């Protein structure tokens, strides 16, 4: 791998997103357009300025439309342009902008629009039925699994191996649902939620309870990526994508130790090397790791090498990961608070890093001065991770 000689630096100059909700009336195309238009408006661009379009979207089985990429195309602004769809399950939220990044970093394109969309409310009776198809049809499906099971099993293994307390994990849900109060798109913001609320919430697949889980959502988000050649034509404060990484582990998920996500660490090392980061704990100021379940935030912080295994829970208990803490984590409110329209988490991962690093996050702005942030998403069958390091220079 050559992680140092990239042709062009790539900056984020605009971001947009719809509200996240259990159901939106908009079609997927309409949602895509709304988010894309907002991102273009912020960048001061029109569609004709855009050289290429990337769409990120998770399984076609949610929307119930085959080849969702080209179905979304016109709403995403891809008509008559170089266009591609990328899909890495939940990891799409951070992988679609990586695809956008290489379109620009290669020197091929100056301005690229990245649009992510998810409409999970289409599938009836519940998004669960679409998730059933991610399992091995011969080994796993006869057992009639529910998607929550794999999270429950992974969480159990994580707690067991690193001696992590359920109460410390539940604090992540409290923090993120409270943080989301400052987010206008939030689906499950709750300023008054307490640790007891989470601990006493309905048991789903123990150790997972209802409030440990992010809700399925409809939503779309978009970012505009530009080359260093034109970045300052658009803004005084571009935020640079300085490192990207991604990695996938074996699909034979019953053959791995689920306690530590090695593939996250590999993706992170790749991104850190590209960004010239030697000591991530000192050089990175805040993080937006993927938090579909509360324990995932902790496990991902450890995978991102920002904490030792088991230590992220202690950081959380000590308040270090609060928005005004010494290492803010998920200041957006995350998937737990804002919602989880799989790929459209782009808006609260890359979008949030952009708004935080350009000082635009308003009441969500973290207290300390931030120059470098990392974000990450995770997906497929608990095996894939994408990582992006962003900086203000």
């Amino acid at each position: 791998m050559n992680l140092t000689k990239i042709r062009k630096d790539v900056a984020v100059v605009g971001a947009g997103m719809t509200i996240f909700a259990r159901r939106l009336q908009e079609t997927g195309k309409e949602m895509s357009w709304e988010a894309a238009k907002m991102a273009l408006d912020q960048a001061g661009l029109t569609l004709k300025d855009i050289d290429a379009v990337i769409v990120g979207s998770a399984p076609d089985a949610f929307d119930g439309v085959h080849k969702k990429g080209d179905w979304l195309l016109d709403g995403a602004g891809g008509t008559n342009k170089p266009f591609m769809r990328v899909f890495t399950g939940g990891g799409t939220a951070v992988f679609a902008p990586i695809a956008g990044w290489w379109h620009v970093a290669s020197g091929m394109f100056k301005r690229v629009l990245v649009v992510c969309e998810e409409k999970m409310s289409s599938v009836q009776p519940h998004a669960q039925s679409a998730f059933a198809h991610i399992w091995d049809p011969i080994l796993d499906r006869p057992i009639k699994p529910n998607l929550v099971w794999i999270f429950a099993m992974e969480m159990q293994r994580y707690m067991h191996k690193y001696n992590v307390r359920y109460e410390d994990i539940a604090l992540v849900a409290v923090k993120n649902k409270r943080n989301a109060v400052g987010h206008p798109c939030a689906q499950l913001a709750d300023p008054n939620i307490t640790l007891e609320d989470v601990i006493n919430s309905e048991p789903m697949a123990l150790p997972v309870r209802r409030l440990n889980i992010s809700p399925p959502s409809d939503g779309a988000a978009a970012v505009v990526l530009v080359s260093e050649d034109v970045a300052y034509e658009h803004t005084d404060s571009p935020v640079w994508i300085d490192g990207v990484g991604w990695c996938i582990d074996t699909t034979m998920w019953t053959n791995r130790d689920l306690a530590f996500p090695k593939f996250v660490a590999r993706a992170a090392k790749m991104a850190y090397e590209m960004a010239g980061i030697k000591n991530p704990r000192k050089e990175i100021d805040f993080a937006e790791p993927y938090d579909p379940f509360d324990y995932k935030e902790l496990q991902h912080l450890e995978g991102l090498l920002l904490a030792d295994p088991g230590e992220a829970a202690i950081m959380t208990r000590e308040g270090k990961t609060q928005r005004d803490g010494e290492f803010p984590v998920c200041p957006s409110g995350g998937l737990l608070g804002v919602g989880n329209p799989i790929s459209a988490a782009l808006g609260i991962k890359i979008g949030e890093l952009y708004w935080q690093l350009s000082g635009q996050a308003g009441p969500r702005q973290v207290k300390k001065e931030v120059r470098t942030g990392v974000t990450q998403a995770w997906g497929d069958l608990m095996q894939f991770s994408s990582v992006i390091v962003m900086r203000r220079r």
Partner: protein
Amino acid sequence: MLEKIGKATEARHWLGDMEADHYYYSAGIAGEKFFVALRDEGKIVGAHCTACNLTYVPPRIYCERCFAELGGKSLTDVGKRGCVAAFTIAHYDKSGNRLEPPESFALIGLGPRTTPLLHKLGEIEPERICVGLEVEAVFKPKKDREGKITDILYFRPA
């Protein structure tokens, strides 16, 4: 490298289906305008983009070419008459069953610089169908309309 399977019966299968019971597709913001006009007023509406001089039928909330917002003011009644832009005569249905008599489907342009609408043709012999044929929409009786594309029964020669 791989072991050969001698008999076909030795090849194991696992049977199953896509477990989703069904899908709920909302017609969307522009779709609501289109289908409500169809159902309540028996009208076909489109959305006109002045910058591109193009009318989308059914309407959209954006122009896919210039990305302009096509709000309520851009909605326009495109009438019930149009021209066949392209057609096909289907002798089999989507499951491969013979259609007797055959059914005709067409893309129908409801005006100049208007995106064509896909629908069925009716009250016409298949051999008389041609590109450029003038047609008009035949609606279901108002009480039977439910805000779906099938509220138009078919298009027939005008």
